[in-house]
């Protein structure tokens, strides 16, 4: 699209304000302004449709990173009931950047695990901006094993800019913690459903990203490297992230095209941040369907299919034996 998303979002915000104003006047003064309201709302819808008809990879990146977007704990609150958060890796810490616990999806007990970004400054700090540490991946693995022990499906919500790469995380084995999870998640004898819900940042995303089904929200991104990082390497200019975003194919559509994602989950018009309830309802419906499909499989088939699903990922040419 031509205009920058920032400009258009300002326009959208102005329109919404106007609509709110007219509605308030209607209430306060009792006059019938329904026509005006409908006209404005039509205008808004058209603008949203126009704007998000064909968003670029960079548009999606901005949407995926929108701080008003629903986070893992929002989805948990809106989709599941009886959530009981469980803490700690039983080794050395409780990482706030990954949350997890037990909860019910309707009548079905499951384990839910996800990256958690923070909304305000204090929570962002506590959550390390969603950059998970080794302790987070190890907590996730502990909870997955707990779920396996009691034959409960696992739902993983991915939303991280990447794994934490501080000196402390290197000292505590950030590589090992992600690698271990990849290894173990292929052996879990219960259904695992992964949802790329916001930012799917590289190894930090994949560290809880192995499952029988991988769903991806329409405006989420999933990438081997942040576009800015890619630009810094290719063009030695981190500001060319927009260009890199296009090259990297980080959209749900692209991930689906290569079989990396099984299903793209629709978001409310304009993005999940515009209607948390609606986003959660759509996701819940998808989760219900996949949980029930996967529970119908016997464990050996489940594991065989999970292996095969990832086994075929890759694009190469095979010539005559040389």
């Amino acid at each position, binding site marked *: 699209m031509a205009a920058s998303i920032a400009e258009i979002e300002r326009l959208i915000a102005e329109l919404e304000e106007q609509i709110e104003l007219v509605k308030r006047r209607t209430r306060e003064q009792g006059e019938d302004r329904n026509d005006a309201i409908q006209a404005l709302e039509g205008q808004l819808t058209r603008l949203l449709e126009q704007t998000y008809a064909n968003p670029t990879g960079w548009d999606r990146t901005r949407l995926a990173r929108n701080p008003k977007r629903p986070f893992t704990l929002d989805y948990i609150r809106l989709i599941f009931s009886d959530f009981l958060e469980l803490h700690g890796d039983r080794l050395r810490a409780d990482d706030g950047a990954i949350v997890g616990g037990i909860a019910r999806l309707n009548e079905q007990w499951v384990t839910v695990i996800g990256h958690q970004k923070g909304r305000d400054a204090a929570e962002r700090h506590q959550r390390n901006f969603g950059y998970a540490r080794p302790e987070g991946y190890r907590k996730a693995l502990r909870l997955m094993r707990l779920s396996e022990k009691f034959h409960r499906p696992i739902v993983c919500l991915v939303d991280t800019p990447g*794994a934490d790469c501080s000196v402390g995380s290197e000292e505590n084995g950030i590589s090992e913690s992600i*690698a271990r999870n990849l290894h173990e998640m292929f052996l879990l004898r219960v259904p695992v459903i992964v949802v790329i819900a916001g930012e799917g940042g590289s190894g930090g995303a994949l560290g809880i990203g192995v499952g029988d089904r991988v769903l991806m929200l329409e405006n989420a991104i999933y990438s081997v490297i942040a576009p800015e990082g890619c630009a810094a390497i290719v063009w030695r200019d981190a500001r060319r992230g927009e260009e890199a975003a296009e090259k990297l*194919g980080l959209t749900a559509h*692209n991930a689906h095209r*290569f079989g*990396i994602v099984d299903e793209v989950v629709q978001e409310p018009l304009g993005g999940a941040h515009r209607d948390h309830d609606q986003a959660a309802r759509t996701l819940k419906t998808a989760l219900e369907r996949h949980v029930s499909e996967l529970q119908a499989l016997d464990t050996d088939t489940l594991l065989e299919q999970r292996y095969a699903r990832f086994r075929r990922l890759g694009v190469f040419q095979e010539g005559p034996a040389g």
Partner: protein
Amino acid sequence: MAHGWFGRKKIPAAGAGAGAGIPEGLWTQCPKCKEVLFAREWERNLKVCLKCHHHFWLTARERIEMLVDPGSFAELDGSLVSANPLDFPGYADKLRRHGEKTGLTDAIVSGEALLGGHPLTLAVTDAHFMRGAMGSVVGERLTRAVERATARRIPTLLVSGSGGGARMEEGLLSLMQMAKTSAALARHNQAGLLSIVLLTDPSLAGIMASWGSLGDILLAEPAAQIGFVGERVSAQATLGKAPANFQSAEFQLQHGQIDLVTPRKDLRDTLQRLLAFAGNASAGAAA
């Protein structure tokens, strides 16, 4: 152990390890201590500096020749070559250039061999080819090598010289190689078989967050750079106070991430002890 590994044929360029300005062939210069080394002597010393013990980069083929029983290596899956699924600008050209420079079809050589008489499969990434970054071909060849070991109930040896981690030119497909290779190792492990990973300079990022950390045993060459975040990225990241030996093999040993730092000359002996310990898996069910 000294069966003249590097005396027999033309030596490929030592890549980043080779000193600049010194005529190649007779002499080479140590990039660490700047000592000028007589090439034949340096080669007989397994391309380890005779003065400061700096371990030069090896090519994948040199590494294989150095590790396995002479004449026992049979390459597999050499016909797999990279595509350019994202039409990433410059990728096709880069592949061609690196192929010409290294004589490899991609950043990995894999196959079967004997080591001290023990059959095993192996896969060796080569940092001279796009810094050993893992694209679809690296992931596929390595996965096949591990799967073959599982099928044949033999150990697998994976050698990393992968400074680039993931190959961003293949986007998400590159990331997925982490999952794919880990899956193959999970099955190999579950079958009760031995996997050994040897980490050489450099071993970073996606490699370390997948198969590079998943051996039953992790060995590393002295002073090899081993870590999660590569150089350029880490320069951007807030690293906090890094110790002097940050991301070295010795740092990782100290932090419990690897079993041993093993000088190049001891590798074969160490590997043979480990293979003997693991024994014959197909006959190994007795407690």
